[in-house]
């Protein structure tokens, strides 16, 4: 265990110094907007950076991570640690006066949830807002991916970490050239962010708004720099954001193929097609119901329908109009889409499309088997046979996901959250959607939550982002038994 601790602190050191560096990037904004936060950001940035460097130096003998078991622990601890240090800018600038709130906001950022406790975003210093969006951006691709891109210089066997981070049915194991792939993904990430920023600039946003919303879109986070989220932006911006978040919820490997011009591979991918079907169907449903039950015109129905479906299924949580006043059937749809989430290997949260696909195929086969009493034929995805282990694993995940959601609702209600908010809050935090129903939906925020309810939300956000099992296994007896 001792050598493991060394390794942990070594990695932690690296990540903290990176986090410190990112804090420093907020300074130009502070300077430009002539805010008094310059020196404060300098302090936290340098403090975090030096602490990280010190840890790296002291535990430079970090050995390889041999036991896969500990990678679960590492991922969770690292995520918690960066979130703790991420609160520094909020606390030092007095944006939040207590730790719970600051921690909530940071976790929400790093988990790309986008649930916020800021009631008046526009009044906050721009540099703090930038830090807020930046946490999403960092969290988006995953600090772990960052580590994988930089790890070549460290010589730590990072594969075990990687598999803990992506405990989903990751069929495209990048093993042989994993580090190179990670680097490519990383460049891709920056490239797409740049494209989004330019597109938003063209839609008439200022540079500051454009870059912050680009961060929100690529990370499918949901923090905005406006009190009314994106409602006051131009119509073209709404369309750009809709497509941007949908694009961000596509598997990054596929995006890579897409950008390389290998369209065939993209459109032949089963998960992509399934995702497309769900999105198109939900948009059609929403638009029709909106047209029938509200006083929107066709264009408006389409725009809001598209935007809300995109924002929900990608678990972004940017808001163009107050959807909580729509017909409850649509509210339910928003909730379900959020829980469903985007494709595996994207920044979107939720249950993930590929899992839904595996489950529905499995149920389909089972039905046939029960009714015809015939041996089950194997399930295939992208022409590859899925092993029984994977299906069983996905079923277990589904059960855990569902139970966590239900327990979340119950706990929130116990801590005095009204039922509609509890339902929405649990779904929003678990999936990373960020905005829920009722007071915490639409343009609302989580200020009405009591302190324990905020902690429930924090746990939901963290465990949802880390694919549940990674977190919960730490609380099992099996894990700690020798």
């Amino acid at each position, binding site marked *: 265990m001792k050598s493991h601790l060394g390794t942990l602190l070594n990695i932690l050191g690296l990540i903290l110094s990176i986090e410190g560096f990112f804090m420093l990037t907020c300074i130009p904004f502070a300077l430009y907007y002539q805010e008094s936060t310059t020196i404060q950001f300098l302090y936290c940035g340098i403090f975090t950076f030096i602490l990280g460097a010190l840890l790296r130096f002291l535990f430079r003998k970090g050995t390889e991570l041999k036991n896969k078991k500990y990678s679960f622990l590492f991922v969770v601890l690292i995520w918690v640690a960066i979130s703790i240090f991420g609160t520094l800018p909020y606390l030092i600038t007095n944006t939040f006066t207590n730790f719970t709130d600051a921690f909530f906001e940071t976790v929400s950022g790093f988990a790309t949830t986008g649930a916020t406790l800021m009631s008046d975003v526009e009044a906050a210093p721009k540099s703090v807002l930038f830090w807020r969006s930046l946490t999403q951006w960092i969290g988006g691709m995953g600090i772990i991916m960052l580590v994988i891109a930089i790890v070549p210089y460290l010589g730590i066997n990072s594969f075990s970490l990687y598999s803990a981070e992506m405990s989903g049915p990751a069929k495209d194991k990048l093993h042989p050239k994993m580090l190179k792939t990670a680097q490519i993904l990383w460049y891709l990430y920056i490239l797409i962010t740049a494209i989004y920023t330019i597109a938003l600039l063209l839609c008439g946003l200022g540079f500051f708004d454009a870059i912050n919303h680009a961060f929100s879109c690529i990370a499918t986070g949901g923090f905005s720099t406006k009190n009314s989220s994106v409602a006051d932006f131009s119509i073209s911006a709404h369309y750009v954001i809709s497509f941007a978040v949908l694009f961000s919820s596509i598997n990054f490997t596929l995006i890579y193929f897409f950008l390389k011009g290998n369209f065939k591979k993209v459109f032949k991918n089963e998960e992509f097609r399934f995702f497309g079907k769900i999105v198109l169907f939900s948009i059609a449903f929403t638009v029709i119901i909106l047209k029938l039950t509200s006083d929107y015109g066709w264009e408006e129905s389409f725009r809001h329908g598209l935007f809300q479906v995109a924002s929900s299924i990608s678990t972004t949580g940017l808001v163009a109009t107050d959807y909580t006043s729509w017909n*409850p059937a649509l509210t339910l749809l928003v909730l379900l889409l959020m829980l469903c989430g985007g494709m595996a290997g994207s920044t979107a949260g939720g249950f993930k499309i590929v899992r839904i696909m595996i489950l529905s195929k499995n149920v389909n086969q089972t*039905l046939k088997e029960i009714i015809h009493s015939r041996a089950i034929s194997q399930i295939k995805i992208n022409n590859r046979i899925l092993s029984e282990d994977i299906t069983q694993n996905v079923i277990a995940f589904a059960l855990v996901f569902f139970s966590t959601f239900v327990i979340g609702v119950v706990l929130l209600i116990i801590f005095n959250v009204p039922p509609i908010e509890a339902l929405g809050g649990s779904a929003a935090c678990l999936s990373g959607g960020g905005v829920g129903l009722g007071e915490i939906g639409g343009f609302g925020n989580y200020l009405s939550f009591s302190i324990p309810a905020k902690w429930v939300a924090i746990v939901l956000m963290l465990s949802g982002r880390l694919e549940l099992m990674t977190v919960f296994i730490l609380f099992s007896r099996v894990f700690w038994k020798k």
Partner: protein
Amino acid sequence: MSKHRLQINIPLISRIIGIIFFSVGIFMLIPVFISFFNYEEEWIWLAVSSGICIVSGFLLRTFAGEKVKYTLHRREGFIIVGIIWILTPVVGALPFMLCNVLPNFTDAYFESLSGFTSTGATVINNVEAIPKGLLVWRSLSQWIGGLGLTLFSIILIRKLREGANYLYVAEFSGMLKEKIHPRMAKSTSRLWLVYALLTLSLFILLLVIGNEPVNSLCLALSTVATGGFSPVNDNMSHFSETTQIIVTVYMFLSAMSLVLIYQIFTGKFKKAFRKNEQLKWYIGIILTFSTILFAILFINYHNPIGVSIKNALFITISTISTTGYYLNDVHFSGLSVFLIIFILMFIGGFSGSTSGGIKIVRIITLLKFIRAQFRRMVHPQAILQFKVNGEGIRPRNINIIFGFCFLYILFFLGGTMVLCLCGQGLIDSMSMSASIIGNIGPAIGNICSDCSYIELPLIAKWTMCVLMIVGRVEVFSFIALFLPKFWRS
């Protein structure tokens, strides 16, 4: 093998349905007599309905001819079960229409189906104003449906042999492996005997403590069937506390499998308790939830201790057994109570009992499965193995159980969606949908406490009908009937 449409043994289906209609008609004579001796003029219409049932049943039997082949395939088993559950309520609806209580077919069918599926959701606003005979018929339909129409036909058609097994599997798909007697017909008739004895004893008990005969009869029939129709407007609040306690005990018993009760009656305690994990969990769940409820009722609402305990147990058992009796003042007393009821709605009783819901065995199995999966995350080489009720669970079992839960939740969500579109609020819709698919009955979340589905638009009522059947036949039969892809061989 080329794809061809399934050959269905139509004469056999016709014969089975004929027999069921016929016996429903015979049962309907009971309300006719009750109505007659209560000097109600509607007795004649009840008699007419009974006549129609008997005649149509007889005709269907004759239509089938004498040379019926008693062979049945697995698929047909599912389809027959589906058809039985859809058609029987049609004749069951006759009395409501002919007596002019529910003149339109949708309402009458809803009420009748709610009876046969032992749901207990009602579209009659003022129950006390309708003829006594009809009240008895409502409860009687629950009693008939409670144990299963299919089991009924199995006794009556002894020639089915293996086919009977398929019917049995189709109605109790999932994991029912317990059998009292190797021969189907005999074992099912024993189940009916236990069922009848339970009902009779409850009826006598209720009479002895001073309830009116008709009320006692209705309560006895509805309780043992875990149905939940009440012969009075105030549901259970109308009755004395002693009555409530007795009913609670019987609801508790009725949600256990009849096989288990049979074993207990015949003194096979070892077999009953040692091998049955369900019982432990059942009691555990009831104690946990009623303790929480007790705390809420006692602390938040300042009820006296005795009353709180009684009410907590009553609510918990009424919901978990999917009976759906309610106490006006307690069931609608607040959110926390609602939340607990809502969760309980999904749990349900034993497999092989008259209760609905997901059923305890499935929940136990899935929980153990999750635990096994976690163990495998730490020890990837370990082999996944665990037992429920002493039987090893294989991935196939998990697939079936999970498939059931998945579809159950899907139908629940679909129902909620339709209710939302029909203008109900989200929480109300969820509550109603859960209550109906779990065959519980009343819409607890509803702010109005009269719990009537009468105001719902037509399309919502039909959706609720679908959910009742889906919940009762445990999803698979319904799907087998309506997804053509499963008809093909």
